[in-house]
């Protein structure tokens, strides 16, 4: 375990982390309710319980750094500052959604905020994040790509290829495995040859094994600081494994019943948000500040809900836009004239 000594967030940063976690939690909790109301369509994958990873890493990122995440990407998308309204409208499938209704929950992207996409096919974004890092390296911009994925993702081929190539190229990419112990409904331990699906593979790419308490944002922050510094210094990629847990099921209506009750209870007792609140109070933050953050978060979510409820359905005309860079979708050559 990397402990939180290496780099510790100052109070401002810690409050920012707390705000991020609270907002993520409030947003997703409400989104789930709206799913059961039938307003959120398609599928969603919540990161409730895993917020410390998103918040801790985002806190070390520069605005021009890049986030690549998965279908379980609400937290990561929010953590970079993407506004809630368009995200929720996107979950509703509305025209003013973040992606105009074309992508949905699984593909949240806000290039403006450095969120380069949420990827829904397991493993695909690891090479893509490496590619962004390569571009930063080539252009000498000192940008870093952060790439988030789950424990289950460590068993797919793209993981292996991306890690090796990133290491060989010394690409400035930080791979963050959120080990929440399950790939959908199957315990990761039952399908993985090593106990730590990411960390126990690090050596296969000449990398250090980094395991971090993914429910402790300070620990995540510390490990991320080291990894980002290393990346910016041209020393190459890192692979960190953050141990965490999703409170709910894998997606949508999944109640997550395949998990032992006591396991769920133990992890809920380690909920990162109330714990961090305690720590903040113990280390100098005052309750009023935290209360305000919480209230502001609730208000933001309410605003977002209003925005999403009022958002129009997508205009039918957009169906055939944005396949190509010219904005259209024609597959015919230019008309002869």
């Amino acid at each position, binding site marked *: 375990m990397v402990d939180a000594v290496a780099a510790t967030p100052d109070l401002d940063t810690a409050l920012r982390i707390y705000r991020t976690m609270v907002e993520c939690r409030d947003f997703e909790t409400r989104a789930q309710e709206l799913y059961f109301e039938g307003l959120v*369509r*398609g*599928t969603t994958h919540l990161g409730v319980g895993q917020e410390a990873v998103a918040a801790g890493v985002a806190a070390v990122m520069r605005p021009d750094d890049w986030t690549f995440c998965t279908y379980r990407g609400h937290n990561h998308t929010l953590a970079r500052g993407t506004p809630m309204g368009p995200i929720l409208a996107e979950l509703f*499938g*509305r*025209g003013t*959604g973040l992606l105009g*209704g*074309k*992508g*949905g*929950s*699984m*593909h949240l992207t806000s290039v403006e905020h450095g969120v380069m996409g949420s990827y*829904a*096919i*397991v*493993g695909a974004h690891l090479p893509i994040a490496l590619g962004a890092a390569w571009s930063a390296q080539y252009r000498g911009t000192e940008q870093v790509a952060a790439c988030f994925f789950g424990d*289950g*993702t460590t*068993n*797919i*081929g*793209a993981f292996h290829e991306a890690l090796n190539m990133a290491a060989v190229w010394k690409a400035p990419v930080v791979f963050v495995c959120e080990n929440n112990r399950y*790939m*959908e*409904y*199957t315990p990761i331990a*039952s*399908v*993985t040859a090593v106990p730590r699906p990411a960390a126990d593979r690090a050596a296969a790419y000449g990398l250090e094994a980094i395991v971090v308490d993914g429910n402790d944002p300070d620990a995540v922050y510390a490990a991320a600081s080291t990894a980002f510094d290393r990346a910016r210094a041209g020393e190459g990629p890192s692979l960190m494994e953050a141990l965490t847990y999703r409170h709910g099921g*894998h997606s949508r209506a999944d109640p997550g019943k*395949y998990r032992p009750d006591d396991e769920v209870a133990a992890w809920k007792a380690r909920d990162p948000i109330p714990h961090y609140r305690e720590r903040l109070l113990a280390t100098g933050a005052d309750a009023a500040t935290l209360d305000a953050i919480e209230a502001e978060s609730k208000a933001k979510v309410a605003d977002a809900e209003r925005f999403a409820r009022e958002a129009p*359905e*997508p205009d*039918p005309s*957009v*169906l*055939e836009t944005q*396949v190509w860079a010219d904005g259209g*979708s024609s*597959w015919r050559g230019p008309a002869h004239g």
Partner: protein
Amino acid sequence: MAELTYRAAIAHAIAQEMDRDPNVVLIGEDVGAAGGVFKLTEGLYERFGGDRVRDTPISEQAIVGAAMGAAMTGLRPVAELMFSDFFAVTWDMVANQIAKSRYMTDGQVTIPLVLRTANGAGLRFGAQHSQSIESWAMAIPGLKVVAPSTPADVVGLMAAAIRDDDPVIFCEHKALFAAKGEVPDGEHVVPLGRAAIVRDGRDCTVVALAAMVPKAVAAAERLAADHGIDAEVIDLRTLVPLDVDTVLASVEKTSRIFTVEENPRLLGWGAEIAAIVADEGFWSLDAPIGRITTPHIPLPSASTLEDLAVPSEDRIVSEIRRRMEAAR
């Protein structure tokens, strides 16, 4: 006869074959204890045990490759790809290894396996979880391709697919999971390569597959009732082998043909049907061949947009009507 959902028919069909042949085994992500993310394999793990129903890591290349290796050495594996879009992750195994090895070895290896997959749109899952990939498979010599539209065909074609000595891509349509239908009692097998004429008609031929079949039938009823157009609807059921005879015979009768396809425009299976008819059925044709497809776009996730993208009953009706009237 018992009424089953399309969903339940899947586990029923696999159980029928696992009962019959101990060499039939099932692997895939979450197919075991969890019964599948779509509950398509529910009860099989309990009934046949962990040796015959195995959960895998997220390793589609290993899943499909392992199925191939097992098939070459005596088993009849059924492997699940959770979403058909994930075929792309293991396309080498499918298109280059499984499809070609028999030919490359001049028949030394036989690869009796079934790759089952949740295919198609309708759940608002967006571009990477809603594709119809049967046309990808049709383009690869050495693969058989099946896409049932009813619970009875799920059972009958699954039985035929599992018993077949060649690799079969078996597309289970997500939008049909909840659909109900009668399934014959006892062992039920439907041979591969036989289309079904699901509605007789004299004015035009409408060729459809999987989730487009009920839509085409409903559209045909409306065309008959509201517009006096009597469409014959053919459910292809399998793309390879392809029942060319049934299509040509129908066109000979009707002189007009439409395809109704869920896939994107270019090189969907309808293009092959059109090309075959424009050759072998040319002299029967009285009017242009119409293909009703999704536009050549990735699928959007918003319900409004997805519904616009995939051919709807309304679009089938209006397109066929417009063309039939233009040709009069």
